[in-house]
């Protein structure tokens, strides 16, 4: 049972329509304190619109949301959130440091936080350079530094690795992992499945504005399956059905994917042997998040 203080983000039927376009459709999602939540979806799925609604930048057409216990865009709520939506945007004629000083003034936090935040993102030595002269990676890191100024309960980062070179991507992922390990709650949107797989505890998958699934990364990957290769197939099928019933078994490339806890592999092998089946392979099925994501998306496409 989640209590109100455990949930840093909670939406109910959150909807946004732009004219005839339904950008976000009745989204119900929750982000728990202390977790890294991956908000996953292809480009144009409604991720950024949802995050903007959580920050009060866009008003919902319908539905409600609570962020850090407050309505989106409220002063108290914003004080508890650090965010970077899409690319980091600052005043190009000011230095990185001066930009953070401006944001610290707006946020009402002590100026001492500026240097601390620059330190965290490894920009302390380059804080005096003009923001307009920063590389994309430095700009994104400054965006994260600005998000950290308020020492927020919740960090909302919208595609933070977009536009970064491979080294920048690795640095940004490392930074996010460090922030998470320090106890920050992070809500991270991305269309890069590897990123979400590496960083996140739970994910919400959004497609055409609808939240398709919200679960843990492990569950989404479908770890709770066993791959079995055995002959003769009809006898093997009958033996496996005693564990999960026919509905829990799929034929994939001549093998069986059985919806059974991989911890029961020995038990399954023994049952198959007892039925006179020759077993050539038994192992857990490891779907990559990418496989699952594409399956989820294609299932929903077929439903439409």
């Amino acid at each position, binding site marked *: 049972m989640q209590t109100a203080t455990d949930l840093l983000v909670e939406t109910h039927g959150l909807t946004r329509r732009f004219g005839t376009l339904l950008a976000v459709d009745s989204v119900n999602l929750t982000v728990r304190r202390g977790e890294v939540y991956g908000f996953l979806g292809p480009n144009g799925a409604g991720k950024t619109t949802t995050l*903007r609604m959580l*920050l*009060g*930048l*866009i*008003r919902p057409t319908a539905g409600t949301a609570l962020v850090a216990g407050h309505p989106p865009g409220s*002063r108290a709520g*914003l*004080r508890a*959130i650090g*965010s970077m*939506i899409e*690319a*980091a*945007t*600052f*005043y*190009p*004629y*000011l230095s990185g440091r*001066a930009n953070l*000083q*401006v*944001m610290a*003034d*707006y*946020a*009402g936090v002590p100026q001492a936080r500026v240097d601390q935040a620059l330190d965290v993102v490894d920009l302390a030595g380059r804080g005096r350079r003009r923001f307009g002269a920063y590389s994309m990676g430095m700009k994104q890191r400054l965006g994260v530094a*600005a998000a950290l100024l*308020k020492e927020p309960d919740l960090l909302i980062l919208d595609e933070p690795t977009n536009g970064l070179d491979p080294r920048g991507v690795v640095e940004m992922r490392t930074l996010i992992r460090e922030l998470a390990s320090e106890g920050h709650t992070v809500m991270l949107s991305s269309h890069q499945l590897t990123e979400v797989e590496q960083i996140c505890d739970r994910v919400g998958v959004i497609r055409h504005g609808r939240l398709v699934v919200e679960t843990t990364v492990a569950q989404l990957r479908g770890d709770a399956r066993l791959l079995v290769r055995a002959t003769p197939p009809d006898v093997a099928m009958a033996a496996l059905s005693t564990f999960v019933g026919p509905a829990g078994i799929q034929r994939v490339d001549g093998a069986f994917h059985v919806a059974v806890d991989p911890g029961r592999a020995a038990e399954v092998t023994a049952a198959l042997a007892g039925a006179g089946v020759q077993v050539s392979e038994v192992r857990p099925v490891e779907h990559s998040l990418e496989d699952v994501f594409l399956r989820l998306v294609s299932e929903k496409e077929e439903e439409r």
Partner: protein
Amino acid sequence: MIGIFRAEGRKLVARPAILIGFGLMIFAIVLLEYVLPNLRYSDPNYHLGKLSGADLKRLELYPNAFLYITLSLYWPFAGIAALLVGALSFGSEYGWSTLKTVYTQGPSRLRIVAAQFCVAVAALGVVLVLSAAAMAATSLIIVTVDGKPFSWPAGIDVLTGLAAIWLVMVCYLAIAMALANLLRSPALAIGISLSYLLLFELVLVTYVLRLTGALGGLNQVVPGTSAGDLLGSLKHLEPGERFVPTVTDPHAILVLVTWTIVCAAVSAALVWRRDVV
């Protein structure tokens, strides 16, 4: 709220376009209105009609003419300067997409836009005082070098004149702010506001409509007529000079204040209500 003012101050003071623009404006005023005319009028053979160079110096360059020149100069240049500051200050936030960064820091949008406007108003006041001081100092140098007796306009007249110029600037700042927020672009706001000021108000309203008498009522409500008449009425006219205003001073002040309030309200409504996408 103090933090928001400080943030807006940091942004404005460090902005090269604003600093260079104001610096050039003050330099141009001193050069074109004092230095070059002084060189021309110092030629003993120079005459303009019946007036000698010495007469012209007394009428235009010495401290007694300081307020007259200040009030003459600031219409329409005060309006143009204020339009540029307004369009750049408010429109650039859209161009740089910085609103999403600023609006997620905590303070309400209305507080932020109010602080932004107040800081711009204060900056215009500072620039006005600095340019007036530069003009006064140049005037003092010229009269001292010439070794002529002089007097300054009454302090209250100078203050009233500067306050009137400031009011005009604030009005045009508010117009530019509303346009920048409406159009979400500094370039469009500058283009449209300058076109409005130069083509509509100065050419159409001031000359065509006033001379032909067409749409006479329009003169009563546009800010340009009120600004020009208010500043014109504060000049101390030389014998033989005539100034016939279209609107009275209270009417002019009412028009300028009303435009300021309406434009500020339009900006506030746009900023408060609009999605930041």
